[in-house]
């Protein structure tokens, strides 16, 4: 088992959120450089080759979204102008926003690669539990997330089969013209939602029969303990903040 697998889901989620928020306090490019270095080290240590491949397979998304944003920002002057050409102004802030969004996407992707939806669901429940000073014991929130993930898969499968079944039943050899086709597809939405609702009803039956309406111990929040690695990560994050503040003061 690798070190990252031992980490608690909460730690991963919070680290991701923290790093993203942390970036918004940056003023200098070297700060981004440090973050990028740290992330690169993390990728080298905590990720295996396959997972890295998974991350970089999305390079289009990672570059495309910030690029669109950058392009739009060229029309506005916000902050110190580095370069300008007619209407277009490239400012310091534009570049920083570009870097931020790209990094943000990378962090989120890394998070999704490293956690299963179940783990994420549970960690959201745990965070709720901690935030409410252990007064929230419910299984509701994590259960909704788990069921949602199950239904997302289910829904996509249903969408495919219903579309197929529709083609099978509705097919008349005559070609349907563009607008009519779109309309047909729109009407398809209703049976799909209907079937999903029916399925949800059946799931509810099945889960009742399995005793899921038993609330208290679906997730045993008391027994959830941090591993020492988790503390290490948290202290690393705190150290990062402290060092950052110190360095900014000095320069």
């Amino acid at each position: 088992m690798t070190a990252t697998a031992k980490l608690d889901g909460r730690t991963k989620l919070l680290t991701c959120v923290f790093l993203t928020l942390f970036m918004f306090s940056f003023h200098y490019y070297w700060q981004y450089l440090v973050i990028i270095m740290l992330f690169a080290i993390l990728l080298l240590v905590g990720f295996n080759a396959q997972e890295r491949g998974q991350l970089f397979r999305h390079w289009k998304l990672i570059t495309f979204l910030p690029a669109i944003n950058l392009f739009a920002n060229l029309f506005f002057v916000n902050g110190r102008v580095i370069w300008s050409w007619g209407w277009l102004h490239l400012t310091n802030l534009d570049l920083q926003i570009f870097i931020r969004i790209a990094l943000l996407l990378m962090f989120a992707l890394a998070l999704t690669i490293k956690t299963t939806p179940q783990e994420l669901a549970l960690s959201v429940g745990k965070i709720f539990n901690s935030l409410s000073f252990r007064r929230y014991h419910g299984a509701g929130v994590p259960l909704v997330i788990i069921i949602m993930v199950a239904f997302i898969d289910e829904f996509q499968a249903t969408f495919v089969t219903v579309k197929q079944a529709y083609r099978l039943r509705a097919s008349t050899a005559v070609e349907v013209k563009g607008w009519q086709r779109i309309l047909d597809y729109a009407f398809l939405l209703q049976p799909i939602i209907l079937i999903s609702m029916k399925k949800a009803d059946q799931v509810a039956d099945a889960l009742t029969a399995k005793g899921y309406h038993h609330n208290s111990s679906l997730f045993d929040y008391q027994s959830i303990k941090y591993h020492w690695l988790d503390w290490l990560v948290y202290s690393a994050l705190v150290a990062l903040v402290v060092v950052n503040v110190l360095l900014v003061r000095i320069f």
Partner: protein
Amino acid sequence: MNKIKLRKIIFAGLCAAIIFIGISLFRINLPAIVGRPFIHFGNTFAVISVMILGFKYGASAAVIGLGLFDVLNGYAATAWITVIEAVILAAVTAVVFQAVHYQSGQLYKLYLVSLAAGLIKIITSWLAGVIESVMVGVQLPVAVVNAFLSLPAAAINSLATFLVVPLIYIALQKTVLKRIRL
């Protein structure tokens, strides 16, 4: 937790899934200055789930569906804004839906609900735009103007919500809701 609650949780999960898919499958990106406006059906289903499930479960579905989408698709930094937006939308929908005392067949009352939802969505979108701009470091006056420029997408979304919600709700009512008691 009893059976009814479990059923509500499961339907909240279903609604969250539909919201999630409503955003990620049927999405048209629009370039804009701040944030990430795109045309999608997430809000439409969010409003419907509040109408079906009531505020508590409907809002959870909306928050989880919209929020998780943001977290998993690289908008983690602004997810909290989305969450607040969703809660406001759910609250307004729930209050208006309660207030009109809807009974089956009264289409105009449903349109009142969807009108309220659409309007509040435009307002919150604009506010969210302002906050996001300020977050990335723009001065407030500029942010206010910037946010206006990214409103068209929100307006289209709100219009879609306004038009579609009553129709889908009535369709559901005719078919599923009369068999499944929530």
